[in-house]
């Protein structure tokens, strides 16, 4: 299936509870954000694949708000498949999020829109 409306398709998948990214059939490289042409190669062979949702915090910041408005985390997450995305890590103090933490994606509803956020992953026993 040719990808012709990458953003709409991405959001439709999210609404179904699926976090999908793209992969170029030619070289197998994963791509995020969704596009119709693969970056670097120009290949028009991008297909949707399910992301594992596994990632590692590459960098992190806390956007400081005036109380009572809560400060919040903004992070760059390196997905296991290769691409990096901006997101936030939830479920911990925003300042406790640290570079190198292993995280797992979760889809949440934010003002009526499905959005990918991350939780700390269960550490292997």
């Amino acid at each position, binding site marked *: 299936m040719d990808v012709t409306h990458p953003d709409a398709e991405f959001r439709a998948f999210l609404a179904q509870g699926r976090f999908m990214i793209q992969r170029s059939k030619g070289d197998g490289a994963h791509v995020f954000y969704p596009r119709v042409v693969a970056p670097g190669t120009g290949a028009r062979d991008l297909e949707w694949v399910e992301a594992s949702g596994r990632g590692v915090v590459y960098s*992190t*910041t806390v956007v400081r708000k005036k109380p009572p408005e809560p400060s919040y985390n903004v*992070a760059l997450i390196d997905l296991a498949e290769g691409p*990096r995305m901006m997101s936030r890590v939830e479920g911990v103090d925003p300042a406790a999020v640290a570079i190198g933490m292993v995280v797992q994606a979760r889809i949440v509803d934010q003002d009526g*829109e499905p959005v990918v956020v991350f939780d700390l992953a269960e550490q292997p026993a």
Partner: protein
Amino acid sequence: MSDFPRGRTAIVGAATFGQGKAPGYESSDLAAIASVMALEDAGLSLADVDGLFFCHPTDTMGGLSFAQYLGIRPKVTDNNRTGGSAFQTYVEHAAYLLDAGAIDYALIAYGSNQATATGKLVSTVQPMRYEAPYRPLNPVSSYALAAARYMHQYGATREQLGEVALAARQWAILNPEAFKRDPLTMDDYLASRMVSDPLSVLDCCLVTDGAAAVVMTRADRARDLKRAPVKIMGAAAETHHREIGWLEDLTVTAAARSGARAYERAGLTPADIDVVQVYDAFTINTILFLEDLGFCARGEGARFVQDGRIAPGGALPVNTNGGGLSCCHPGMYGLFPIVEAVRQLRGEAGDRQVADASFAIAHGNGGVLSSQATVILGAADA
């Protein structure tokens, strides 16, 4: 081999106007005043200008609007918007066009009234749809992510970032045109309000008004003009990304490549540079660019700026006008480092003059470490 017209074009006029607060003026008014001041400085007039290099804070067709405002009909109008690095790219493009004979006199100008008009950074930038849901406080959060990564990777400290802010302020105190000239201590820095960790208010550039302009021509014509020409030795640029998530290594920017190409074109090395102007939108920028431009080794930048090394009296004079941190930052700052380099190479920088400056570097940054552009300038007798 490089086909860059090394030393064959020059800046022959330079001016700033309204740095800080300039109430009552529109952005184009400020840019127009700086433009005629720069032309007057060169001994030229508007009628001489046949190449216009301009971007307006909010008018995306500002190159056209500004030609109309000035009443000129340029043969070349470069209205590119690579952010704050646009002005360095204008110098590069103008050098080629002048040397090819396509134009004879290039006017490069910028002005913004953002501080008195709105009190905050004015920009045309639209939030990126894959960043927007996470509400980064841009541009601060993007640079904060770079700073956090740098600190993690190299063990750098807030105090080391603070050294950059303190040095900028010490230079600003020596510059009568600078906006922030009250003394700044490390305690002040460490106590300043956190905005997006690890960057606090005093890690961020100012929000001011201001305008700047330079006039370029070929070196043969420059000899007949009023002022000693400042030669364009080399210039180069590289666009790497738009949003911060697409910079693979947040501690290395495309300045490493724009700088290397500019040095090659100039036939110079970092050791030849006497005075350094880099676009310090945030304290981390200065550290990253000192590394990228070869003034210290990778990962050494934070230690390099310690002990006043880049402050007045230090081994390497950096951002001698006070920079975006303490002199002015009217939205896009890239032209101000160029004007300051010209003033240093002309020997007209007053109390902040660097002795015997022969070569200067003026580095521009656009977006969020996205577009990098480097200009290397030489004094008339260098």
